[in-house]
């Protein structure tokens, strides 16, 4: 939807989305939501150079969107001026059960302690009995695809990949023009929702190119359009946006 709003979709995909917008109330509301999110990303400096250009020359074409951008600035100004809200997360439950049990039913508390100790001893014995089990690690199979960044992709086509079989993960090889950063960070998005964030990624050489490998677990992949947002991480910890990588998962 974001590429649709920036005017960077191929004709077939654009027509598909336009028909959905016309027929489905959810698609129409999704369009409005993504418009606001795009404005927020622009204001936060989270768009790539190419996306920024498209935003300013294509997205902002109408007075209504300029008005929405203006409101987005006002809202950001307000939110940034307010002290970060304290979380309303419920206070972590302190484990007060055992002291209470000890006070009210000391015999039961003693029996529970004994059972726990015996359980620990049993587990230690089991581990010692089968040392090779400690070194076993489960290695999942994976299928790999190479993705070119949005700025390098020719023809504007989106790479398609079939839903991996169960137990098989998807390994993305994100092409880089230059391996400039010591580390990388990725965000996997679907319909503007972040599904997975991965830190500590490193570039690798592959032939005469450089890639950043990223594994996505099978369990979060369902048919649809995905985007990986790649950022470089400086030694100071600051992130610098590099590019977006798109792919489509099909049945």
């Amino acid at each position, binding site marked *: 939807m974001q590429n649709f709003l920036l005017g960077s979709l191929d004709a077939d995909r654009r027509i598909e989305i336009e028909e959905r917008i*016309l027929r489905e109330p959810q698609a129409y509301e999704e369009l409005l939501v993504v418009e606001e999110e795009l404005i927020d990303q622009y204001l936060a400096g989270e768009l790539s150079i190419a996306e920024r250009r498209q935003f300013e020359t294509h997205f902002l074409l109408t007075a209504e969107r300029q008005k929405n951008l203006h409101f987005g600035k006002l809202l950001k100004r307000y939110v940034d001026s307010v002290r970060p809200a304290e979380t309303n997360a419920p206070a972590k439950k302190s484990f007060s059960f055992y002291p209470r049990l000890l006070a009210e039913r000391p015999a039961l508390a003693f029996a529970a302690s004994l059972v726990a100790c015996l359980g620990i001893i049993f587990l230690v014995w089991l581990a010692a009995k089968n040392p090779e089990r400690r070194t076993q690690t489960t290695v999942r199979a994976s299928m790999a695809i190479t993705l070119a960044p949005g700025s390098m992709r020719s023809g504007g086509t989106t790479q398609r990949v079939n839903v991996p079989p169960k137990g098989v993960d998807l390994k993305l090889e994100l092409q880089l023009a230059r391996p400039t950063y010591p580390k990388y960070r990725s965000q996997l998005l679907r319909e503007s929702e972040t599904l997975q964030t991965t830190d500590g990624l490193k570039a690798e050489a592959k032939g005469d190119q450089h890639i950043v490998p990223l594994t996505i677990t099978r369990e979060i992949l369902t048919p649809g359009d995905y985007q990986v947002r790649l950022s470089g991480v400086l030694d100071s910890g600051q992130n610098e946006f590099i590019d977006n990588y798109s792919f489509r998962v099909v049945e």
Partner: protein
Amino acid sequence: MNKNWLLSQESFDALLAWLDSDRERAGIKYEQIRYRLIRIFVARGCAEAEDLADEIINRVTSKLNAIGDEFTGDRERYFYGVANKVLMEYHRRRQPQPPPSAAVDSNRVEQEYRCLEQCIAQLSDENRELLLQYYQGEGRAKIEQRRRLAERLGIAPNALRIRAFRIRAALQECVEKCLESNLR
């Protein structure tokens, strides 16, 4: 663009009847189709999106005698077909010029900001808290905060997105009304 052909009451009634046998449902469908056409034209880079949407509605209405009951598919699809034709004509006719950005009036901006503060104060505690927690922060911290917020509210992340959007849209409307009443 033929702005001379306006919808007469009779033609408008015929259009509604074609959209749905129930007049009220037909009216809702008409509005939805019009808003969505406008959105599509805006997404296609048309500065005159509302005029184009009205043009399409006029053309479809003028063809009702010809298509009548013969057309049995989605009514929206028919509008979309006419929309593509109108768009091609529009692009052939002219290169759309982006509207000039309005000059920033700092007094007006401050007035808008005060209206925003008033409107946020009028929100329920729950909505105000949701708004702040949803939009505060940056980067990963913001994403994590939203995830925790959705968990705390017991709703899916997408439902939280929609809820935040609706609060924001209502706020924007409130600010516009506040400005209008201040200008009177």
